[in-house]
């Protein structure tokens, strides 16, 4: 066993595709890799949530055992999971100190609970009453509670698993400040993210995982964003980062027309025209009303105000059944909303179509197989077999299956809401390619996103959303600052 000088954490030779990494005290160490590369598993091993079959884990040069979150916590490891681990029915302070409530005579000492939690809540810049229930908070606020909870154990090692995916720009800034404060105190930070730009900004060192192995580990100062992208996917990536062309949209007929469309909690409505062959990118941060608009457009939620017309005819979308019959499709930001993980890839691809194909009560299996083969080929979905459960695919491939479902159904209006959230750069490039191809084949696409770069690359027009309204419209040649300015003007 070798000594790790200054090493706050060393995870070495962890078996079964769990690679080794080392994080130094006072350093931000970024972990990068495609979905399924082993990042989340490694994090879970370090946190004690998953038991590996071999290898060792050291904190400050001392070996610690695997196997229980308790042990990892005692060793000074604290973790902010991607999936929220909060109890929604408890208050903010109760959650921050979950499992470590101060006791008094067999009961809970509520006053000291509040006092102990307070500094951590303030530290993450959470502007809510610590007594309010977590269920009443938004996603971004919950993420901050999660971080406060991790900080409250005064960790020597802090693990963050895609912490910014639910945060808005200013909130992410605040998180980066907290991280840099912690590193000056000598805390080792392990930071998992798909956002290369973030990693370039805050990390000192970056390790790239692929198929459970470390393929590269460099100081961030020695790498470029493009170089990182290449390391992640293992080949030169044909990132088509040209901006969308503005002219493409002028020719088509208006396919979907929404007027004054509104949905709580926001007042006021949205006007939207979607033409054939057009990608309209809706840029908006969490809470801007972008996701709510997407759900209303697809008939998942009823609008409180306004009307929708398809091909000039007013329609009432009572459920997705109605919108699918009109040729619409929906790709959600949450992959769990997309595939039915225990059903086969083939069954998932035909999920929106099988009921209408073939006469009689039986699924047409020949048709299903040929559709599945075609789509797996066209969309380059990486599968061993179309019979394998969809849940066994990586996130990017699951998202492609969901997209393939609508191609199978012949959808001509696609409502996509942040479809690349949490998927890696390689899969993201594939999704971009498919969106462009669908549009050039004549589909109309509403593309909601929380990243300006995506909006500029895909949108023939860019709508900026805040507080449930469209607050600006830009062409893709507008600068990021102009777009951000429009969004921030109302939202920050």
């Amino acid at each position, binding site marked *: 066993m070798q000594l790790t000088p200054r090493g706050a954490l060393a995870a070495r030779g962890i078996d*079964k*595709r769990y690679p080794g990494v080392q994080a130094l005290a006072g350093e931000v160490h970024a972990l990068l890799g495609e*979905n*399924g*590369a*082993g*990042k*989340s*598993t*490694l*994090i*879970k091993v370090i946190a004690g949530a*998953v*038991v590996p*079959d071999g290898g060792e884990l050291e904190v400050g040069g001392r070996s610690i055992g695997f196997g229980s979150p308790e042990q990892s916590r005692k060793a000074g490891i604290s973790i902010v999971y991607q999936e929220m681990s909060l109890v929604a029915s408890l208050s903010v302070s109760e959650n921050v100190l979950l499992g470590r409530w101060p006791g008094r005579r067999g009961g809970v000492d509520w006053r000291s609970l509040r006092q102990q939690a307070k500094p951590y809540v303030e530290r993450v810049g959470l502007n809510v009453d610590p007594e309010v229930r977590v269920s009443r908070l938004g996603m971004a606020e919950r993420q901050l509670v999660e971080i406060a909870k991790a900080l409250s154990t005064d960790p020597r090692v802090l693990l963050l698993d895609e912490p910014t995916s639910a945060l808005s720009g200013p909130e992410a800034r605040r998180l980066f400040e907290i991280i840099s404060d912690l590193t000056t105190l000598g805390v080792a930070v392990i930071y998992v993210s798909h956002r290369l730009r973030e990693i370039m900004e805050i990390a000192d060192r970056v390790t790239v995982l692929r198929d*459970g192995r470390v393929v590269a580990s460099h100081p961030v100062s020695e790498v470029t964003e493009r170089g990182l992208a290449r390391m992640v996917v293992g080949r030169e990536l044909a990132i088509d980062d040209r901006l969308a062309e503005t002219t493409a949209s002028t020719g088509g007929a208006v396919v979907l027309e929404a007027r004054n469309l509104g949905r709580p909690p926001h007042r006021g409505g949205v006007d939207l025209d979607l033409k054939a062959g057009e990608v309209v990118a809706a840029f908006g941060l969490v809470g801007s009303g972008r996701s709510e608009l997407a759900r209303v457009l*697809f008939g*998942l939620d009823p609008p409180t105000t306004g009307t929708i017309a398809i091909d000039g005819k007013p329609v009432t979308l009572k*459920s*997705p*059944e109605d919108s*699918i*019959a009109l040729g619409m499709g*929906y790709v*959600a930001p949450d992959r*769990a*909303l*997309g*595939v*039915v*993980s*225990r*059903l*086969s890839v083939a*069954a998932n691809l035909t*999920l*929106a179509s*099988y*009921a209408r194909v073939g006469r009689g*009560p*039986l*699924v047409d*299996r020949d048709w299903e197989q040929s559709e599945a083969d075609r789509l797996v080929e066209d969309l380059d979905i990486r599968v*061993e077999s179309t*019979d*394998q*459960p969809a*849940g*066994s695919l990586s996130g990017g491939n699951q998202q492609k299956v969901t997209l393939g*479902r609508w191609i199978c159904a012949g959808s001509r209006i696609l409502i996509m809401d942040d479809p690349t959230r949490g998927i890696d750069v390689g899969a993201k490039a594939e999704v971009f390619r498919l969106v462009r191809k669908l549009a050039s084949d004549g589909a109309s696409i509403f593309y909601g996103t929380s990243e300006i770069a995506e909006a500029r690359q895909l949108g023939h027009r860019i709508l900026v959303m805040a507080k449930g309204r469209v607050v600006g419209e830009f062409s893709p040649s507008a600068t990021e600052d102009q777009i951000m300015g429009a969004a921030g003007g109302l939202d920050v």
Partner: protein
Amino acid sequence: MSDSQSVGPLGVVRVKSPVARLLASAGGRGGALIILVLLMVGFTLLTSDFLTSRNLLNILRQFSVPGILAIAQTLVIVTAGIDLSVAATAALSGSLMAVSFAHWGLPEPVSWVVGLSAGLLVGSVNGLVIRYWRVPDIIATLGTFSAVRGIALLVTGGLPVPTFDRVVEGRSLPGSVNTLGADSLGPIPIIALIAGLVAAIGAIILGRSKLGRSALAVGGNPEAAHASGISVGRTKLWIYALSGLISALAGIVLAGRLSSANALMGEGMELQAIAAVVVGGTNLFGGEGTMGGTVIGVLIIGVLSNGLNIVGVSEFWQRVSNGLIIVVVVALDQWRRRAGARGESA
């Protein structure tokens, strides 16, 4: 559906040692088959009375009705629902069939229609209450579980049918019911052939039909199913109606097997059916299950109960062992799923 559903999310169940591997598979369908074989070998060694054709046919005859109910139950559980009313529905349907034929003097085919319609109706009520009143499945069917027995008692006056002083001159049970419930085709009880036929139809519904596909999707991920244009409420309504219809058939042949119907017949069979489904590897949380597994589950429950009887274990201990086996098999299944999940990478 495909075999791939019994394995872990990566298509591989990763565990440490051969012993652990054996234990891990013992909760799945392969495991259920192993348990069935072990039980049969065990009872064969313990007593020479077990492995006789007479005894094995007896098991088939006795567990055909719980088997048919388990097939209905499988369809429901796959949607992440549960139907506590199957046995009560069977009793009501069997009783109504018998009463309408023997007491009311209706023609034989009409009495069949009356019995089957009663089941269809109860199932539809379950589905409608769940869909429109938003009552949780377990509560809705707990309601019918009790109410339907009550209706059966009202219909029969609490007496076995045919009741001596109420029968229409010369009538007892319909001949077809007696034949299907009590006769044999060669050595094989017809009631077992019916159970086999229902299982085959159930397997086609679950594995091949559009309804079965919708049921698996709704049980596996209701939000995704909804967003793909599959109506969760309508799918469940169809499945519960079908469950009621199949239960009705079970009740009618049960009356034939017993040579009379009564409102309290089949008590506790809903629990036997649920146990068989779960032992057969169907996921209680929905989205995954097979008819083949359920058939094996029924056989396990049947062999265990019959074998313990022959060996001379008291009825009291049998209840204890029945409870134990359900919990142990499901615990093994959970353990297997966790082992599968552990082998999964990030």
